[in-house]
């Protein structure tokens, strides 16, 4: 349950015809999307079930060395994932694009975007992400210390909000620092958005300057892996828009105009200008 805002509903998902802005700290680039429609309206909740764990699976141990999962679906006590997890599709969703990762879609699904809120029960489980899968993103003092579920910091207990770009694989990491072997369940609240990127430089500036309401998601990307960069290029033709301060507005709009020209035409929302004959476009006569 979330409190609805100007752009989100009670699920915390972006409303139709509202904006979603995804910011990547490592590149300092943001991509504003317009959510044209939610494909799964009325079916936002997916009770996934237990984390995909098999009996005797090897996990790292907070006590040193490794530990093993005592049974299928059970998070071992004092254990953390050695290898990030992907969510295999539930049996009745086996026709998804990738049978090993239900959230993965290739670049030709570029007009789709998954906004995923994951809740793990018990909520004391440490949760983290790798973007792309295999790349830990939580860092301290630039890259001097790599953090994550296996460290003292770099995780969130019980929940995560994530945006899944097409062509970019995301890995989920988990940790259990109690002494209990834990049964668990994962609940996804998600939106499969049909999206476009606005083609109006001024509107983009206003969104990024927060004059136009937009739901912002900052992805935990501290290291800009080439897989993310290439993925975004393949998806949208761009990696995003630079952020500027109000006194740089004119320069920003000029730059945004040149970035807009590179956006893949499949998802570019072209600014529509009314013709003189359009209803509602009243031409004032000068006397």
């Amino acid at each position: 349950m979330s409190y609805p805002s100007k752009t989100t509903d009670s699920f915390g998902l972006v409303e139709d015809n509202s904006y979603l802005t995804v910011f990547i700290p490592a590149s300092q680039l943001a991509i504003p999307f317009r959510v044209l429609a939610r494909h799964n309206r009325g079916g936002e909740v997916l009770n996934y079930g237990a984390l995909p764990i098999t009996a005797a699976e090897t996990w790292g141990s907070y006590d040193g060395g490794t530990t093993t999962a005592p049974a299928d679906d059970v998070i071992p006590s004092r254990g953390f994932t050695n290898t990030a997890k992907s969510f295999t599709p539930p049996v009745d969703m086996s026709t998804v694009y990738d049978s090993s990762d239900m959230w993965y879609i290739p670049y030709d699904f570029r007009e789709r975007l998954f906004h995923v809120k994951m809740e793990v029960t018990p909520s004391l489980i440490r949760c983290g992400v790798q973007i792309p899968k295999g790349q830990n993103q939580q860092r301290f003092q630039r890259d001097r210390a790599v953090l994550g579920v296996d460290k003292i910091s770099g995780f969130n207990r019980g929940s995560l909000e994530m945006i899944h770009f097409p062509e970019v694989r995301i890995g989920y990491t988990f940790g259990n620092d109690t002494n209990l072997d834990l049964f668990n369940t994962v609940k996804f609240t998600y939106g499969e958005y049909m999206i476009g990127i606005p083609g109006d430089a001024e509107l983009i500036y206003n969104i990024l300057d927060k004059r136009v309401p937009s739901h912002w998601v900052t992805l935990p990307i501290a290291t800009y892996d080439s897989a993310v960069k290439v993925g975004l290029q393949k998806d949208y033709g761009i990696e995003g828009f630079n952020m500027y301060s109000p006194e740089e507005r004119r320069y920003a709009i000029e730059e945004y105009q040149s970035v807009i020209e590179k956006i893949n035409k499949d998802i570019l929302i072209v600014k529509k200008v009314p013709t003189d004959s359009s209803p509602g476009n009243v031409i004032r006569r000068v006397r």
Partner: protein
Amino acid sequence: MVSELFTVYGKTDGASITDDLPLYADIIDYTIATPEHLRIPRGMKLKIWAIRVNGNLGDTAVTVNYTHDVTAGIPVYIAINTDILDNAVDSRFSDDYRKPIILRGFTGDEAVKFTWTQPVAVVANAEIDVEYCD
């Protein structure tokens, strides 16, 4: 805000006059072992909201024991709270705390266990409502 509230259930063995309660709960898997303590992760708290003891065969005391270092060879536990089922009064005892017993995880090595003590070894049951929170 992280909060996980659940009930652990334990039963005395009817043979010992004192021991630690084995802890059963819906979220705990027992394939390898039944836990007898709850470790408190660093930065989190364990709240004990209620203790219920029942059994009509004899008196039973349930003591909450806390240690700062469960990883020590012989952990040193301190008694934090004791609830007594007195069969002369009732065969059920329920201590439903309006304000919970709060125990902190300072380093992540802290733990809590529940110990029963009886004048004569009999079977008794205990249910304890606990909450992990940050």
